[in-house]
Every structure is written in C-alpha cells, then in structure tokens.
C-alpha cells in the first residue's frame, strides 16, 4: 500500500458516501445535484453544512437532556398509590439496595454517555471551528467512540417498554411511562443524528491548508 500524501479533495476527487467510489468533482457550473455513477448517492466533498447542522442538533440535545433528567420516567401505581421515579432516583434506589452493578450500568448508559457524547461533539466542533491542529489522530478516535456508544443510551427507553408490558397486575400494580421518557428518546435520537452529521474529515482539512 503506497501513500500518495494527497487527499481526495486536493486531487479534485470526491469519495462517494454510499459506496466509497472516487469520482471527479462535479463542475460548479452544473446546477444539478451530482450523483455517484455507481450507486446513485448524491455526491458531496464533505457532509453538507456539517458544522451548522451538528451544532443545531447538539444544542437541541442539551436542552432535551434537562427535562429528561428532571421529570419522572416511570410512575408505579400500586394499591391506589402513585410513585414517580426519575432516572437518578432509580440509580440511587439500586445503590441503596446494594445492587451497584445495575446502578452503574444505568448511570453510565443514561446519564454519563449522553452528556459525554454532547461534550465531546461540542469540543470537536469548537476545535474544527478554531482551525486547531491539535492531535487530529486522537480527535478522530474520540469521534469514532462517540459514534459507537451513543446507541446504548436507549437502554432506559427499552427498560420502560418492558416494565410497562409486564407490570399490569390490575389493582396490585401497574407502571406508566412518564414524560421524561419522551425527552430522553429525543436526546438519543438527536445525538445520533448529530454524530452522523459531523464530518471527521474536517479535523484533517486544517493540515493540508498549512502545507500549502
């Protein structure tokens, strides 16, 4: 394998997002949208509007994150009494009853991962906007991690789904999903779209501009 020390962009080529075929850059005079000759996906040098889109999604997720953690995620109605739980109160309950591995799993998946993901994406966005040349290797790795772990935040949504299905013991006990579940799902979906709309090639673009 030989390195050409040249990026596709410098060689006036575009790598297709769908099938990774290298295509010639469409001429700017052509107003029609360019499509990959092999798989038909629309061609872009970089993901379109990557920074603005990712910022918008990250900010939306930050806002959703607050009600997701403050409002109740489940309400248990047992013998006529209703008790609401937030995500943190569930974690604290498990810690108090000595089941700390489960407490840890819920805490990491529902509280830590979404927040860490949002902070990392914000840092990546800021570093790209400031044209930073700081450790592109590690920043790319951070991006890969955020892309891979985001899905695990759906954990609490699935737990609510299963609880709601199972606990329907008439007057004895029923469980209802709380409003936080909707906000929480919104956090997971917006952060997943945010990670998808960020283009890691922006991290490396700064390098070429320096060598020019």
């Amino acid at each position, binding site marked *: 394998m030989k390195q050409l020390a040249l990026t596709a962009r410098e060689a006036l080529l575009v790598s297709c997002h769908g099938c990774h075929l290298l295509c010639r850059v469409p001429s700017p005079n052509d107003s029609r949208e360019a499509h990959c000759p092999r798989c038909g996906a629309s061609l872009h040098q970089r993901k379109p509007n990557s920074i603005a889109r990712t910022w918008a999604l990250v900010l939306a997720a930050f806002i959703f994150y607050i009600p997701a953690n403050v409002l109740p995620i489940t309400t248990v109605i047992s013998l006529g009494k209703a008790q609401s739980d937030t995500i943190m109160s569930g974690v604290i309950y498990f810690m108090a009853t000595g089941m700390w591995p489960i407490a840890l799993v819920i805490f990491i998946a529902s509280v830590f991962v979404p927040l860490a993901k949002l902070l990392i994406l914000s840092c990546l966005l800021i570093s790209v906007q400031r044209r930073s040349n700081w450790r*592109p290797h590690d920043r790319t790795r951070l991006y890969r991690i955020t892309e891979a772990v985001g899905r695990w935040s759906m954990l609490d949504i*699935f737990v609510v789904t299963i609880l709601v299905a199972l606990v329907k013991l008439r007057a004895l006990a029923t469980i209802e999903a709380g409003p936080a579940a909707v906000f929480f799902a919104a956090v997971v979906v917006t952060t997943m779209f945010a990670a998808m709309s960020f283009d890691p090639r922006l991290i490396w673009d700064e390098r070429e501009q320096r060598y020019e």
Partner: protein
Amino acid sequence: MDSLIACHECDLLHRVQPPPEGGVAKCVRCGAVLHHRKRNSLDRTLSLTIAGLILFVVANTHPFLALKSGGLVQQTTLITGIKELYAQGMEALALLVLFTSILAPLVHLAGMLYVLLPLKFNRLPRNLPGVFRLVQSLQPWGMMEVFMLGILVSVVKLAKMGEIVPGIALYSFLVLIFVLAASTASLDPHLIWKRWEQSK
C-alpha cells in the same frame, strides 16, 4: 490490480491492492479501516441472513416474557410493550421502540436477502444500489443488543415483585443478536459494489 481509495474519515488518498482473504487495509494517517476483505463473504452472510429471518419470526410470534405475581400471570410478546406505550398516549416513543427493536432489524434482514440471494445465483436484483444503501443506512438504528440489556435491568428491577418466566421468543431474540452481529461482520460491501459494477 491497484485501485485508488480515499479514506472516509480523513480523505487521504491511497493506492490499495485488494488485501488477501481475511486481510485488512488501514489508512496510514488516521487508522480507519479502508477495506476488510472477508473470507467467503457472500455465502456466510447469506446463510446468516436466512438463519436470522427464521429467528426473527420465532422471536416475534412466541411468548417473550411473563411475570408471575400472587396468582396473576402477565404474559407478553415482543410487541406488547410497544402497544402499551401507544395506548398510554406515548405514540412517538412507541414508534421509536418499534423502529429500533423490530422494523430496523427486519428491513436489514429482508434487504440483505433481497441483495444476496440473486447475487449467489449470478443474477442482479432490481435496484440493488437503492436497497443496499437503505440497508447500510439503517444499520445504526437496529438496537436489539441494547434491548437485551434492557431486559436484564428490568428482570433485576422486578425481582421483588414476582417471578419472571422467559419464553422461547426470548431465547430466539438472544441468538438473533449474535447472528445479526455475525452477518454484519461477514459482509464485505466492496464485494457487492464490485459485482454491481462488473455487471453493468
């Protein structure tokens, strides 16, 4: 034959010779995997896809979990919770769970079968690029393994309330997770696109 590939994570151009079976070509600058040539990719992925479809049917038609408590038994299937969320007025949430735990895996399996079965017999499915791109774009949204962890957490949560009885669908679901992961791991997208290109 050499071919030119740009790294999808840092855009660096590479002249890559197709790696040997089972070999991996990585980007020299950022380390992203450029091409992982899989052993026997088409046959393996096809057989795992068919196995996955059978498991999927069992997982969705048979009893999933039951809760026994004080003489009452609440029997559920995979879709019960989704219906219940919908009935409680959480329509968007119900649709999201339906999409991530049932629809995305189903479309993934059906799409792979649609693409791979004709290729196996040296034919081309109609609109291969569209279907294959759809399958690939749905990949992050299939979250069955997260659902499985959710079951584990729920079982611990409900331990005090009653006895949890796993059904046959739960075991199919568990095996399906591994089968899906294996089918994703054995798939070589370059191979599919090469076949498509050669046939045009």
